[in-house]
């Protein structure tokens, strides 16, 4: 019943528990801190941040607005106030730099639940094999914008579970627990990593936003790889690792360039051979085949193909 070997066993042995969970802990800390900053207002009357992830005001000065919500509003035919536009611009610049799906793995509260579902699957060897195309989310993203355009209201925001859950935690859940539980069950029993990596148009939007972000995971020490497959098991978007890790013969550089990579850093944690590390997208050249040559085939080459 219980899986034979958890994917971080080797890493714990070689690096110790703490280092084998470094980025995971950092991520949970980030997710919970962001949530806490919103919640200490209503709970403890300490108002550092007001609002929610759709739009917020920090320390009464810094406005932040979800650019996806802003986009839906534009499609629905409303031109937002300057405050919202400024807020969205700040958010856009941030994710352009650090990678769009950092939103998913470092901010979004639903990720904690879907990660938990995935952890249970591994722990208890639960198969959830329904396969849905990973591109479904992009089609759904297009559908939500089309809906805003045709109905004149932000139709997606009436069902958006990500906003619903985060807003619910801060302002009162109502029946949003049901939606969260449904996503949990869906991920646990029906489709592996089904919500975040196949359906969620919010993640799809942030994927596109961070297509060219400079901050990436790199597999610079890929010749060290002993094919233990631990990184593939933990990676929420497995397909993004392959070109960077195994692409040496095909002259593919060591940078994970896919916009679908969430920069969660879990592969860095579980690799006992320290193959991965966070780095910049620049200097994505092949080390061994063409050493010390001036062919800097960075960015443009591999990004476009992987992005969608």
């Amino acid at each position, binding site marked *: 019943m219980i899986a034979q070997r958890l994917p971080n066993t080797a890493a714990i042995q070689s690096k110790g528990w703490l280092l084998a969970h470094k980025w995971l802990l950092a991520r949970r800390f980030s997710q919970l801190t962001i949530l806490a900053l919103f919640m200490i207002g209503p709970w403890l009357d300490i108002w550092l941040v007001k609002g929610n992830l759709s739009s917020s005001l920090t320390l009464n000065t810094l406005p932040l607005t979800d650019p996806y919500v802003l986009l839906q509003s534009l499609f629905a035919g409303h031109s937002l106030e300057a405050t919202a536009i400024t807020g969205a611009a700040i958010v856009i610049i941030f994710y352009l730099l650090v990678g769009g799906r950092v939103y998913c793995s470092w901010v979004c509260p639903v990720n904690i639940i879907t990660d938990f579902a995935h952890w249970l699957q591994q722990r208890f060897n639960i198969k959830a094999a329904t396969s*849905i195309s990973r591109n479904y989310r992009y089609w759904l993203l297009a559908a939500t914008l089309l809906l805003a355009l045709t109905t004149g209201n932000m139709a997606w925001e009436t069902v958006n579970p990500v906003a619903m859950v985060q807003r619910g935690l801060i302002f009162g859940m109502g029946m949003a627990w049901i939606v969260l539980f449904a996503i949990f069950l869906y991920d646990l029993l029906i489709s592996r990593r089904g919500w975040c990596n196949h359906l969620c148009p919010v993640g799809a939007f942030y994927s596109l936003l961070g297509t060219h972000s400079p901050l990436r995971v790199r597999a610079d020490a890929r010749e060290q790889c002993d094919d233990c497959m631990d990184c593939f098991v933990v990676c929420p978007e497995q397909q993004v690792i392959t070109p960077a890790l195994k692409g040496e013969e095909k002259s593919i550089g060591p940078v994970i360039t896919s916009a679908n990579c969430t920069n969660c850093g879990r592969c860095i944690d579980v690799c006992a051979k320290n193959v991965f590390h966070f780095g910049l997208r620049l200097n994505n050249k092949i080390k061994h085949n063409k050493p010390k040559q001036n062919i800097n085939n960075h960015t443009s080459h591999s990004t476009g193909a992987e992005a969608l």
Partner: protein
Amino acid sequence: MIQQSTSRLPDSASRRRFLVSSARTAGGAALAGLGIGLYSQQSVSLPAEALRPPGALAEHDFLSACVRCGMCVRDCPFDTLRLATLGDSVTIGTPYFTARDVPCEMCDDIPCVKACPSGALDHSLENIDDARMGLAVLLDEENCLNFQGLRCDVCYRVCPAINKAITLEHVSNIRSGKHAMFIPTVHSDHCTGCGKCERACVLDEVAIKVLPLNLAKGELGQHYRWGWKEKEKAGGSLVTPDTQHKYNLPKDQRYDYEGEGLIFDNEASNDSPFSSDPLSTLNQGMKEAP
């Protein structure tokens, strides 16, 4: 020839597979989109007892603008506003208040509007008296105490625009035959829809309710004109001029159209068989009665 066909076959097969899977994915997304669209269309009908904060755009525009951040809720000093949650009949995540529970206190500085980052609450609203959250309507005349001739007046007293948004109109009380009734009457050019009257109504079930403007207000057909207003505007009748009614009166008698009525120029010339005092006519023959 053979080389060509073998190299093309897997190509077209994979292309077919790609097209099929793309079509399937797109179809799935379209189906989901249709579901979301239908659901959202159903969930945008605002129940009559839910009122939007001051300065809210018209409902359809409001729903295209509101980002559901809840900052108006946070900056409301009286905890009047709520964000709708899943299961409420109000569109999820949007702010509203229920006047019977907590009415709007009409803050002079309108903090909820200032807090709105999206313009769903119109920042051009600077005087709270110009807010139109709804319109109070005295719905139940059968149970309103004032309509029974009692002096309840509570809605009138609590109104922040007393004597402007709600006035008391005097009407004779037919039941008692000698008293007046003080009828609370709402005037839309002053009522902000704050809901204080609805909150204060002493009945178990309110007689006066704030309704959204589209429910509370009637509207004249576009092509109709009020004749007397057009006449005033034009400075005279726009159609055939009014003919003055002519009475064929006996000599020395005139008719005053301004309200005086029948005027006798010469009392002596009054050769009517009836006395000028109508009572003497009515009492005719009474004195002779046994």
